[in-house]
């Protein structure tokens, strides 16, 4: 436990600007739970989306740099943004299995020690489940969110492709529901929780983004949710801005911090 308690922490670019809450509450909660997060120097943007094409190498390099930094630090890598997590995990999965890709990446980067997917990558939620444990988290809660009916929104990035992400059952996940129970609230299970919010389509097709995010929010509301939580800044944006729903949406780290008694009264939101 003690050895595992220090992690390389990759916040990602959005957490530096629009999603500061996601980042700040993740850090303060980790500290309260006895976890040290060390941010690598000079990290770069993960690229936002993983390019699945086999003939794309350059677009995968920044994720490899992050993975290598974690390897060289001798620690596992933790991310909290769903998109960064997805890109980094897919890169790590593919480079460990696709020899051709590993060869090209390593020769492109002129690595002295070739990178072949050695770094362990956790999402912050996995940290809570597998390293800290939801039981311990429950014991650490000072301000249980009793009576709150919370719908967990996974979106597509946290679970899929399930082989690479390997975080939870992609069709009937439980990690966020277990998290919600641990902080004293009641999870609301609704089928649209693992369907896409519309993502980057909001850039050029607001109508489609609205349709997608409304379908998610309506399903959550229909099943009786008081609020929705997510780990992704873009999901949060779509669900709030495009869905037309009144249901509040929060980052999961925010309610985590609230349950741990770390939340400041006046936040940006």
């Amino acid at each position, binding site marked *: 436990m003690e050895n595992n308690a220090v992690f390389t922490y990759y916040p990602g670019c*959005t957490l530096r600007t629009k999603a500061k809450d996601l980042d700040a509450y993740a850090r303060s909660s980790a500290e309260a739970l006895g976890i040290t997060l060390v941010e690598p120097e000079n990290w770069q943007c993960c690229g936002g989306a993983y390019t699945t094409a086999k003939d794309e190498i350059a677009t995968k390099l920044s994720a490899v740099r992050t993975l290598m930094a974690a390897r060289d630090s001798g620690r596992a890598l933790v991310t909290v943004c769903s998109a960064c997590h997805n890109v980094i995990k897919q890169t790590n999965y593919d480079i460990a299995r696709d020899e051709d890709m590993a060869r090209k990446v390593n020769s492109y980067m002129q690595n002295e020690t070739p990178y072949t997917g050695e770094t362990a990558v956790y999402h912050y939620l996995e940290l809570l489940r597998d390293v800290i444990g939801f039981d311990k988290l429950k014991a650490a809660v000072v301000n249980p969110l009793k009576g709150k009916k919370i719908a967990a929104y996974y979106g*597509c990035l946290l679970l*899929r492709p399930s082989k690479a992400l390997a975080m939870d059952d992609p069709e009937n996940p439980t990690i966020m529901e277990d998290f919600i129970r641990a902080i004293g609230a009641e999870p609301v299970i609704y089928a649209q929780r693992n369907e896409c919010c519309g993502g980057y389509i909001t*850039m*050029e097709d607001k109508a489609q983004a609205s349709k997608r995010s409304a379908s998610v929010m309506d399903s959550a509301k229909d099943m009786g949710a008081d609020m929705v939580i997510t780990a992704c800044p*873009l999901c949060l944006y779509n669900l709030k801005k495009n869905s037309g729903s009144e249901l509040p949406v929060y980052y999961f780290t925010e309610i985590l911090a609230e349950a741990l008694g770390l939340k400041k009264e006046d936040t940006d939101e």
Partner: protein
Amino acid sequence: MSDKLKEQILRSSGSNVLKCMRCGKCSATCPSYDEMEYHPHQFVYMVEKGDIEKLMSSDSLYKCLTCFACVDRCPRGVEPAKVVEAVRLAAVRRQGNNHLVPTDIPGMLDDDLPQQAIVTAFRKYTK
């Protein structure tokens, strides 16, 4: 030409379109189905047939959300989203075919839009 293009797309996607059994589950699960002119199962089928130019010029390329629902739920492991991505890449790699140009961006922004969206859109729409 079409054969070469098909070969390129198959190589780039890493997908084996011959595994498809035409069940249509990809299109059944696709969240963007109604916005698309050609649907995921058609991408797989038309690439297999070598009928790719129609796909290249279709707006459907930019409607796929890369949510991987079709990839995870395909019973045959065909990975339709990777086929769509390969066709889209082939399209935007043609000179002057970038789907998104930087000068368009300011008009798309609002105060809350995370830059993650911009980065991702650039990854997906341009070369």
